[in-house]
């Protein structure tokens, strides 16, 4: 793991954007219709560009002797510090849209705060990114309203996607190693735990307004199904709650650990290695190539 907290911060942001950008790009040529093909291809292009800006800042500010290409494509799997949410396969269209909504609303919260960073170069980059992320948020919110109000199957598949993604989405705010120092110096004006509280507050309101807040209490994706006389039913017990999430005084709050913890320390799910092999294959096969 990077020793310097500033490098840690840049890599966490950049790796999230790069890896999710890679997943989005897998829709190129395959999305359900051409507008969405263009949408996901464009969002992927934006996210990868944002990753590049952050890697370049890491290199140009002397935090890493590796340039942007080497940081993006030349690291070993355990050196990537993205959250697990970003590396998960696209699964179906419902999961893809649910993840994009969760990621981009969470990203908006952290970018708002980083735009006020005491690190001027970072704050400037974040302001450039925010103007482009606005279109990603619009896309996510349009689909959110369409699916929340839409026919039963679409609503069901979207809520399944939210259920599956929500736990790991919270881990986007898993504290960074040496985060205290970043907060003390104003590089990160607020801690990840504070950002998570802010995001959960907003998310809870949006889900409640759409009567989708049941995804916060029912963890459809991991609840074990057990056969009963009424058919397969989710097993009772703690599996029914999203781990790490509680409701206190009418607000959703983080309590306990994280699902998919360890991303920020270079630990990954089983889905990361195949992605890494494909993403970095050309770079590894032709070291130093220019294109």
């Amino acid at each position, binding site marked *: 793991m990077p020793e310097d907290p500033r490098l840690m911060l840049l890599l966490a942001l950049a790796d999230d954007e790069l890896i999710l950008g890679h997943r989005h790009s897998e829709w190129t040529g395959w999305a359900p*219709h051409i507008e969405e093909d*263009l949408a996901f291809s464009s969002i992927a292009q934006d996210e990868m560009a944002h990753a590049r800006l952050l890697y370049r800042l890491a290199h140009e500010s002397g935090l890493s002797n590796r340039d942007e290409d080497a940081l993006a494509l030349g690291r070993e799997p355990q050196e990537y510090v993205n959250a697990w949410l970003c590396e998960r396969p696209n699964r179906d269209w419902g999961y893809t849209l649910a993840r994009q909504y969760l990621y981009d609303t969470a990203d908006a919260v952290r970018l708002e705060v980083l735009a006020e960073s005491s690190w001027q170069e970072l704050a400037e980059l974040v302001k450039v990114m925010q103007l482009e992320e606005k279109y990603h948020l619009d896309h996510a919110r349009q689909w959110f309203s369409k699916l929340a109000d839409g026919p039963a199957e679409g609503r069901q598949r979207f809520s399944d996607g939210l259920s599956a993604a929500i736990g790991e989405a919270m881990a986007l705010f898993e504290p960074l190693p040496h985060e205290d120092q970043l907060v003390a110096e104003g590089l990160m004006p607020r801690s990840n735990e504070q950002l998570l509280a802010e995001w959960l507050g907003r998310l809870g309101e949006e889900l409640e307004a759409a009567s989708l807040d049941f995804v916060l209490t029912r963890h459809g994706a991991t609840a074990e199904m057990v056969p009963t006389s009424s058919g397969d039913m989710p097993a009772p017990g703690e599996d029914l709650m999203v781990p790490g999430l509680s409701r206190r005084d009418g607000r959703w709050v983080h309590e306990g650990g994280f699902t998919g913890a360890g991303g920020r320390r270079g630990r990954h799910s089983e889905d990361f290695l195949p992605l890494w092999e494909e993403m970095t294959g050309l770079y590894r096969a032709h070291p130093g190539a220019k294109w």
Partner: protein
Amino acid sequence: MKGTAEATTLEGAIWEALSGIRDPEIPPCSITDLGIVERIQVTDDAVEVDLLPTFAGCPALDVIRDDAEAAVQAVAPSLQLRVRFVYSKPWTSDRITPEGRRALREYGVTPPGEGARGGTVVIPLAALERTSRTSLCPFCGSEDTVMESAFGPTLCRSTHFCRSCRNPFEAFKPKG
């Protein structure tokens, strides 16, 4: 420092040279009309040109930078050059000059924010509802248009449909 007049003249010549450079994805518009050229600084032995990217992921950035460098080189062959994209401030679509907007319109791409009008617009193909500005049709001038997608063939363009002349068209995305 060079004498002020001389520096100013050279700066003018550099600006003139840059106004001949096009964004390959927006061929009718020079980079000066797109508002990409942020700063030209001429000193005794060097020229610095700072450019702002329209979108950070624009694949034409390297081409624009190389073309701009060659153009400046031609008018200031004896000086050291540094032509680069900077991110110290975001490019916004209000940087496009009136001439640039005219060139976009003639090319068939509606300039950003043109024909802004409130109201809910139904997007036929994606079947998503959207409350947003519409864009004037660059072909027939109609306001009766819908945005089909905020995304298009390049990062800086969105796709639309004109219900009057029934043509699909593109608009330059408002930014900022």
